[in-house]
């Protein structure tokens, strides 16, 4: 048991050390959300004044929790996917041949990805006051908890896919055809309950919508923007973590 904990700790610590040492990655990881928020967000918000409707200010306010979720989605997914090339060419082989179970490796990887996602989510959260969103310590802690749940769901998805798909080219395809649609159809950028019917249906099977919904309610505390009750969001996320981690660990465990 002690040995398995050491294994989890090793995999986790390595991910954290690597992340903190990679300055461009640290900066890049919140540059994109900031771009979305202040350039795309501000642009769209002002277009409301052109096309009518007003409420530009409210849009930025609406979008903010979605943008907090953005680095969480990408970081935790890629962190989990890195298990593939690492396994083929890198350090993971060293861990695979060590007397540590495959489950510990997966758990370490999940926790590593989630920790980094939490760091990044917190950085974006700091921009809240600029948009007039008040963040107190309690909200901060709650958001961290939700980020953790989202990160666990997405990391597990990453491990599941990584265990099945083994070519680098496929990663590109996945980014374009899975991650971006997941983000767009999560309610991060626009309210889902007012869109066309098919979007509404797709968003219901998108795990990220539940995470973003929980995040929005926690940060803004605005019942009018809520899709599902908070408890339902959390139940769905926890359920997905359990199911995905069982499948993911099973797939990763297959030796060849």
């Amino acid at each position: 048991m002690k040995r398995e904990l050491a294994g989890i700790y090793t995999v986790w610590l390595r991910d954290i050390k690597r992340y903190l040492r990679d300055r461009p990655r640290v900066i890049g990881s919140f540059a994109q959300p900031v771009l979305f928020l202040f350039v795309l967000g501000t642009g769209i918000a002002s277009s409301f004044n052109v096309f009518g409707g007003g409420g530009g200010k409210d849009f930025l306010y609406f979008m903010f929790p979605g943008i907090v979720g953005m680095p969480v989605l990408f970081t935790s997914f890629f962190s989990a996917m890195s298990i593939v090339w690492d396994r083929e060419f890198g350090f993971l082989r060293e861990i695979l041949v060590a007397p540590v179970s495959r489950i510990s490796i997966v758990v370490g990887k999940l926790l590593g990805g989630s920790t980094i996602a939490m760091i990044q989510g917190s950085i974006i959260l700091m921009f809240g006051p600029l948009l007039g969103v008040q963040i107190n310590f309690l909200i901060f802690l709650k958001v961290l908890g939700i980020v953790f749940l989202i990160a666990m769901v997405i990391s597990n998805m990453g491990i599941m896919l990584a265990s099945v798909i083994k070519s680098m080219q496929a990663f590109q395809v996945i980014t374009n055809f899975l991650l971006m649609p997941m983000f767009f159809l999560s309610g991060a950028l626009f309210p889902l309950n007012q869109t066309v019917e098919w979007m509404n249906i797709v968003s219901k099977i998108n795990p990220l919508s539940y995470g973003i919904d929980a995040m929005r309610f926690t940060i803004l505390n605005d019942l009018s923007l809520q899709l599902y009750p908070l408890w339902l969001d959390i139940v769905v996320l926890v359920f997905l973590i359990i199911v995905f981690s069982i499948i993911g660990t099973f797939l990763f465990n297959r030796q060849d």
Partner: protein
Amino acid sequence: MNDINTDKNYKSGNIIEVKNLVKEFKGLRAVDNISFSVKEDEIFGFLGPNGAGKTTTINMICTLLSKTSGSITLNGHSVDRERNKIRNCIGMVFQDPSLDDRLTALENLHFHGLLYNIPRRTLKKRAEEVLGIVNLTGRENSLVMTYSGGMRRRLEIARGLLHYPRVLFLDEPTLGLDPQTRNKIWDYIIRLRKNRKITIFLTSHYMEETEICDRIAVIDRGKIIALDSPENLKNMIGGDIITLTSEDNARLKEYANRMDGIEVHNIKEDKIRFEVKNSSEFIPKLIKESPVKILSITARKPTLNDVFLELTGREIREESASLKDNMRMRIRRRMRH
């Protein structure tokens, strides 16, 4: 968990026993029913071309790859039931680099120590010791990123030794290194073997490098085609190797075939090649008596490359592998992890 490194419950005196091992990848036999054993504290080598099944076999022994059938025991532990015990008593140096280059050398060793449950205080001493063995003392706090290819390989060897394994696996330890660095790596390995009781299992497709082995298994297309000491393997050739070019190779070949005890083995482009018992007596005689003019002639002692040629009819380093070999390599690459 108790200390498995001192476990002596295997009986045969062989630290590794492999019986009827088979690995199939989608119907392709990468390893085709091989059996061999490795004695304690010997240097055992796998020699064969790329895609022969060397890495696949090693990966099965060190629990990274499941086997299709057959049995493997290491230090008395079965690969089917006691994977962690096997993992505990082997050190690995992989063909592809497996260091984390964003960490320092010492951090790489510390992670290794954590994984193998080495107490902190022991770890410090051992890290110093293994870094000394591969001559990296003083560079332990540099990021691995700043290391040269040879230094990385040395660090991997040091890491493989950190938990005092009973068997050290070196899969193509000199692949991609320049000749000078390659020689240095072998110096460390030879020194290691002198100073410490450890079994070394290595693979290489560089013939001359496997000559440091006590015993070599020549492996080709998933089968072991010879297993003996380098000396005995070379004695199979029985004499010196003569390579020559002449104005009329066909006629010379005919002539040579008639001479006592000579069998011309192969003609490569404009060269013919054969073995004679005593080249210093044979050459003057041939030059005097040859019916055609000889343009060049060389004589040398046989190498393991000649052994491979003798056994398979191919050169080990032939660049153009057959279609089947290519396919096997590709599949192996895709499957290997």
